[in-house]
C-alpha cells in the first residue's frame, strides 16, 4: 500500500479540475463577456476619439483582464471547501503545494487563457496599434499567471470567512500594483518606440518567484484557514 507518486497526484488534480471546468464550460465565457462589456464602456464614457483610446488602450485591457480574473478567483477553493473535497486533498499522502499548483494551473487555463485569447479583440476595439499587440500579449501572458498565483494565496487566506469577495479585492489589488506598472510600462515603452524588454524581464522574474513560493504559501494558508 504505497501512495501514488507526486506526479500521479498532480496529474489527477489537473485532470479533475479541467474536467470539472469542461462540465461547466458555459461559465468559462463569463469572464470574457465581462471584459468585453467593460472595455466597450470606455469609448462610450470617453468618446470615440481614436488617438485618446489608442493611448489608454493597453492600460484598459490590462486592468479589465485582471478585474475579470478577480471575479473568477472566488471559485478556486470555495466549491472544494463546501463539498469537503479540500479536506480530502489536505489529508492525501501528497505534497499539498504541488496539488494546489495543479489547481492553480487548471484555473489559469480555464479563466485566464480565454481572456488572453480575447484580448486582441479588446485591443482592436480600443484602437491599440497592431505593432504593439505582441508586447501587450507577452505582458498579459506574464501578468495573468502572477494574478492567479497571488490571487490563490489571498483566496486561501480568506477562504474561512464569509462573503470574502470584497475582502479578496481589497487584499489582492494592492499586490497587483507593481504587476500593472511593469506590464503597462512595457506596452507604453513599445508604443513610444523605446526598449521594453526590462519591464517584461521584471515580470518574468516575479513570475518565477511566485511559481516557487506561492503554492507552498497557499498550502500553509489553507491549513490555517481550515484549522478553525
Amino acid at each position, binding site marked *: *500500500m*504505497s*501512495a*501514488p507518486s507526486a506526479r*500521479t*497526484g498532480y*496529474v*489527477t*488534480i489537473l485532470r*479533475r479540475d479541467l*474536467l*470539472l471546468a469542461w*462540465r*461547466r464550460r458555459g461559465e468559462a465565457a463569463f469572464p470574457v463577456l465581462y471584459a468585453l462589456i467593460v472595455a466597450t464602456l470606455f469609448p462610450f464614457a470617453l468618446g470615440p476619439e481614436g488617438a485618446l483610446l489608442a493611448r489608454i488602450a493597453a492600460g484598459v485591457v490590462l486592468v479589465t483582464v485582471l478585474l475579470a480574473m478577480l471575479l473568477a478567483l472566488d471559485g478556486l477553493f470555495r466549491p472544494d471547501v*463546501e*463539498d*469537503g*473535497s479540500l*479536506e*480530502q*486533498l*489536505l*489529508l*492525501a*499522502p*501528497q*505534497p499539498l503545494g504541488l*496539488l494546489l499548483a495543479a489547481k492553480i494551473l487548471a484555473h489559469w487555463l480555464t479563466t485566464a487563457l480565454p481572456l488572453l485569447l480575447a484580448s486582441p479583440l479588446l485591443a482592436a476595439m480600443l484602437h491599440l496599434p497592431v505593432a504593439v499587440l505582441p508586447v501587450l500579449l507577452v505582458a498579459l501572458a506574464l501578468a495573468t499567471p502572477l494574478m492567479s498565483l497571488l490571487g490563490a494565496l489571498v483566496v486561501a487566506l480568506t477562504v474561512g470567512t464569509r462573503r470574502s469577495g470584497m475582502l479578496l479585492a481589497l487584499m489582492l489589488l494592492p499586490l497587483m500594483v507593481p504587476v500593472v506598472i511593469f506590464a503597462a510600462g512595457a506596452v507604453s515603452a513599445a508604443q513610444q518606440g523605446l526598449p521594453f524588454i526590462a519591464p517584461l524581464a521584471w515580470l518574468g522574474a516575479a513570475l518565477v518567484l511566485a511559481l516557487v513560493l506561492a503554492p507552498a504559501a497557499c498550502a500553509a494558508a489553507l491549513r490555517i484557514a*481550515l*484549522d478553525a
Partner: protein
Amino acid sequence: MNPRPPPAVATLLEVRELAFARRDEPVFGPLDFDLESGEIGLVEGDNGSGKTTLLRILAGLLHASSGTVRVDGLAAGDPAAAGTALLLGHQLGLKADLSVRENLATAAGLYGRRERCGLDDTLVEVGLEGYADVPVRQLSAGQKKRAALARLRLLPARLWLLDEPFANLDRAGIALVNRLLDVQVASGGAALVTTHGAVSFRDQATRRIALS
C-alpha cells in the same frame, strides 16, 4: 513510498490527555484511549458534544488545545503519516459534476488503491452497480453516501475516521457499513465511528469513547 510491513497488532491510534476548547470554552477532554489494529472504536455523545471536532483533530485538520495524538506511531499532521487515516465527514468530498467512477478515480490517484480491489467490484459491493457513469449530482443522499463508502473500500487507509456513517442510509445501507467495518477489521485495520446512539450498532464494538 514507505513500504513498512504492518505488524501483527499495531497501535494505530494513540490519544493522550487530548482536550479541545473553543474560545476558552472547554468542548471535551481530557481523553485517553488507544485503538489497535482489528479494533473498532465507538465515539458516543449528544449533538454538540464535539464528535466531529474530535475526528477532525485525529485526522490532523484541527489542532487540539492540549494533549497528543499519534497515528501509527507518528504525530498527527506528520506528512509521513498522511494516508494512514481516511476521514469520512458530513461533507462527503464528492464532486457533484463528476460521475461516481471519476470521483473514485480521483481519490485513488491521490491515496492509492487497495490491492486486488477493482472499481466495478467495489461498486457492486456498495450497491451502486450500474451507477458508475452517473453524475453524483443525480444520486440520492443515500446513494451519495454509498459512493463515499466505496471510497473507503477502495483506498488503502488502515484507520477509518467515520463521522456518522449511518446517516441517510436505509437498512441495507447500515448492514453495508457493518460489513465494510468487518472487512476493515479482518484485514488488520481499525475504525473510529461516531454516533449519537440512535443506531443499533454491531456488538463487536470493542471500545467505547464517551464525550459529555
